[in-house]
């Protein structure tokens, strides 16, 4: 019993404990770490990934995996920049998240209609989406240095970057949805015991589709932040972000078997990874060691997650 409780506690708070330790070490090792400027920068830089990881949490809790969010990010980048240049910058910012939503919905349909595992389905759709992004951009970079477009990623509101506000609001909304709404309860039950959910009258397919649609929307939202910040739309944007998002979710102790997890912990997972990177930069350590350290941290997190699963 105490061992089970210990495992549960570790699974829940390991990521926070690691963040606190790491922040302590970095503050001690370097004067430039614990500054408002540095901390705000870390938040700002990682806001897009945190948004994607928040949504990925729901997908994984419902028992799925989404490997296509990086490619949706790329489409978002190309679409928003193209619209900004050719039509209207505000329309580009507004529309890209909804393009992501539609693509995520398509993912959900493919998974539930073809009855294939989401892992396989999203590998395929990722290639399709990537191809679309390349075709749309014609393989070129789309420069969008327009005031009406770049404000989102570059400017601040009440002293804090817009991106950080967006991330906070999005994560809070998803967290609320997961813990307080019937939808959240359905997500937890679909991942925890799909058969029981079906026999409880829950339309489990709709629930799964919804999680993928949200993940798509999040990828679109993350994409406009980054694209507006660099003022550049490109089909190669977002590469590898799906794996980073999954890593952050797992780091946060969300079970890869579904059924349990929390959005805030995934956000914390993103920042734990970010702190490791930041520490290496500040202390000018060998970048090879950075990947090594990140890998070890992720492996440890997976081990803790598996410990909690063994019942």
């Amino acid at each position, binding site marked *: 019993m105490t061992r089970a409780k210990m495992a549960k506690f570790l699974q829940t708070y390991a990521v926070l404990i690691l963040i606190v330790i790491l922040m302590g070490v970095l503050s001690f090792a370097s004067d430039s770490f614990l500054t408002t400027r540095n901390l705000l920068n870390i938040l700002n830089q990682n806001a897009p990934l945190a948004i994607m990881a928040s949504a990925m949490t729901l997908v994984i809790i419902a028992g799925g995996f989404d490997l296509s969010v990086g490619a949706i990010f790329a489409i978002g980048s190309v679409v928003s920049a193209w619209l900004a240049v050719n039509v209207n910058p505000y329309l580009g910012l507004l529309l890209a998240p909804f393009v992501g939503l539609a693509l995520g919905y398509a993912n959900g349909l493919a998974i539930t209609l073809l009855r294939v595992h989401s892992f396989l389905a999203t590998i395929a759709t990722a290639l399709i989406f990537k191809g679309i992004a390349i075709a749309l951009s014609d393989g070129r970079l789309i420069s969008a240095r327009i005031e009406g477009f770049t404000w989102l990623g570059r400017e601040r509101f009440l002293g804090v970057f817009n991106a950080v506000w967006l991330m906070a609001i999005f994560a809070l909304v998803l967290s609320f949805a997961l813990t307080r709404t*019937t939808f959240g309860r*359905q997500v*937890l039950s679909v991942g925890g*015991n799909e058969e029981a*959910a079906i*026999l*409880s009258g*829950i339309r489990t397919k709709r629930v799964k589709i919804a999680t993928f649609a949200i993940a798509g929307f999040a990828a679109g939202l993350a994409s406009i932040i980054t694209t507006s910040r660099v003022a550049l739309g490109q089909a190669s944007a977002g590469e590898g972000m799906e794996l980073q998002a999954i890593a952050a979710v797992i780091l946060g102790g969300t079970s890869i078997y579904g059924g349990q997890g929390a959005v805030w912990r995934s956000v914390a997972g993103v920042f734990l990874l970010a702190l490791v990177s930041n520490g290496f930069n500040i202390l000018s350590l060998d970048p090879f060691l950075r990947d090594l350290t990140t890998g070890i941290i992720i492996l440890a997190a997976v081990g803790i997650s598996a410990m909690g699963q063994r019942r």
Partner: protein
Amino acid sequence: MNTGALLSLRGVGVRFGDVDVLSGVDLDIRPGEIHGLIGENGAGKSTLGKVIGGYYRATSGAISVDGRHQDRWDTPTALENGVAIMHQELQLVPALSVAQNVYLGLEENWFGLLRRSERSRLEMLMEDSGLRLDPDAPAASLTIAEQQKVEVLRALAREARVIVMDEPTAALSKTEVDQLHRIMRRLRSEGRSVVYVTHFLNDILEVTDKVTVLRNGELVKTGETADESKQSLVSAMLGGVKSETLYPPKPRDFGDVLLSVRDLKSPNGSNVERLDIRAGEIVGFAGLMGAGRTEIARAITGADPSTGTVEVAGKPLTERSIRAATEEGLVMVPEDRRGQGLVMTLPVRANISLPHLARFSRAGIVDKKGEWALAERLIDRFSVRPAIVDGDVSNYSGGNQQKVLIGKWLAGNPKVLILDEPSRGVDVGAREAIHAEIARLAREGVAILVISSEIDEVLGLATRVFLVDDGRLVDEIDPDEIGEAEVLAALFSHQGFKDSVA
């Protein structure tokens, strides 16, 4: 101590959670005998078979082979000692051929490089055993009877001296069963032993040399099959004395018909012409394993597709889905609480409110207060222990999980309640609490259908009992007039009828 037995069990017991499924079993398997294990559903015959094969570990008792005590009896040890088990769910690798399956794990190799000799080795083995199969056929293409042959060959390839067959005939036709019996006799003539787990009395009488009867996890008797008859086996399976469970008084005050089923047919084989249950009435379904009781219930509630009409309180269900049925007050408590009932990753509170989320929410936001109060009420009503609203249900005992599961479905104040195996695998205390609650609900005017493999339970609770076979209601009996032995005999005779048709 050494009685010439190949394999001896002494005082073997198995405990799952807080339930003893097997206790104090002594058994000897001699070389060259076919030994039948028989008992009612849940008597422990399958569990005993799995213990012999090393698939389940005995929690108490001793196992010895050739008089040598075995400290650790698991599947590899059992195989080393020549004991193989043929599972009810056959374990073949579908993409490999028959020969490759038979020699799986025994491939002749040269530093890991396959010699590809399985085919010729199998030819020799088939020559010796008289079992014929195409060695190159992929396992996925085989019928169940052929797959069983592969399992037998696999056991022979491992030089098994004892082969445990766990309910091997469940999916076989009459001719295939005869063929399997011939294989058993052949094995016996070679000096090998077969442990034959089945609930078919005729098969036991036809082929076995010895028979062991189990009841409630205890061994009733072991004897020469030649000295037994259908009657003697049935009475041994049931026991001379009635089980000591006391049932609550049966409610007899019926109201209007609340559930009315007409011409229900479903692809899973249910075929119910007519079923009416009145308010306050408890109706029971009795049947053997695989008789289609659960399938009928699933068709009624809309868990499986079906044709025909289902009316709840005079109102036909137009949309046939669980959701629609729940809304009209028709609910089913499923039989498998781990697999189908509870979400083990959610706390008690969330499990109870799961089918009723629409009622306990406003604009999609869960009303935590209402949910909490509901969970508290049901925990109190069923005296669930521990009585924690947000308790981790995966750590609860079977009985308390079952209480939570039933509570989950009562939360919506149903008009019609179907209970599938309401007390499977729970302790006596929880069982009585559940029975009392069922009777109380009936008195409150709920129409109830109880499905149970324990005939005793159906007779003790219901005022009307249907015998179910092959997805049909084949007979209606008065549980106050007819005893358990007669019901069991009637079920076996219906089953016999099906056999002669097939």
